[in-house]
């Protein structure tokens, strides 16, 4: 477990500028009592299918972002292209904590029907920052 965490942090370090913001986010979640965080937990939650409130469709993070984070996604309804989520190819990701929290709020509510916990958010960030 410890190795995975250091692997994730190494990913953050490698991305230079974004390092501070992502570490601060992780620290913030840790301060709420969450952790340790793992990229693997993030990966499996990423593709977990949830039933929508109407029950007619299932959805996951991958519905719009795809399963390969180094590739662009596509909004499942409007078709609008979405820049890749992976830090390794898109260094603008996770640089603005307010933006990160806004999208977590919106997208977790749409996908899971509730807001994500600090544990889940930390795992997702580890997943996005692990090359």
């Amino acid at each position, binding site marked *: 477990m410890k190795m995975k965490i250091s692997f994730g942090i190494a990913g953050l370090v490698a991305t230079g500028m974004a390092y501070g913001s992502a570490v601060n986010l992780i620290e913030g979640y840790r301060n709420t009592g969450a952790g340790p965080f793992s990229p693997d937990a993030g990966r499996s939650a990423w593709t977990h299918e949830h039933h929508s409130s109407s029950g007619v469709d299932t959805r996951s993070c991958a519905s719009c972002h795809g399963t390969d984070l180094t590739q662009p996604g596509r*909004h499942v309804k409007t078709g*609008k292209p979405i820049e890749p989520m992976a830090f390794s190819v898109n260094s603008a990701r996770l640089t603005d904590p307010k933006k990160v929290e806004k999208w977590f709020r919106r997208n977790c509510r749409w996908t899971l029907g509730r807001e994500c916990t600090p544990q889940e958010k930390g795992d997702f960030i580890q997943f996005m920052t692990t090359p």
Partner: protein
Amino acid sequence: MKKTISIIAIAILSIASIGAVMSSSEWSEREDEERYEKEYESDDHEDGSFRGAWLESREDVRLVENETYQTECGGCHFAYQPGLLPGKDWESIMDSLVEHYGDDASLDELQATEIRGYLLNNAAERARLSRARAFSAGSASGDILPRITTTRYFRREHSEIPARVVRGNAEVGSFSNCQACHRTADAGIYNEHQVLIPGFGKWDD
């Protein structure tokens, strides 16, 4: 004395010509075009280069000029110009962002206030450009949320477009996907000469 008379004469003529423009309330393509001309010439927010490049195709709906709107709303879908719906419809949309056409589009209070103000100040009934004004009749449907695609003007303009080239076309998918066919939609230009339906080609009726 002579000078005074000529000034008065010019003033009367100017008022008369303004009156002639104002009285052309009948909707027709030709008047529409003429109005574009006048409004375009009086537009002060465009630079020369834009004017040169789009000499034949001027914007007929005012461009999106609010960065918060462009970022927040344009993040998920085409940033529809405020002139495409009347203010009352924008109000309904802003009042229900948590249930936004099946998506959660909630904003923080500061951004919501800014975007609401921008939309209302530039809504169809406030617009100077004529195509935007045509949208001021608003949404005629009893839908829960108003839609640009159900406004009377939109439906009339698209009545001859078969569903197979839009809904049945994977590259378009929906009438809400303006820029799929209106390649210059983000420049506020919607005239039919710019239309290119993916897989079907130009549309000129």
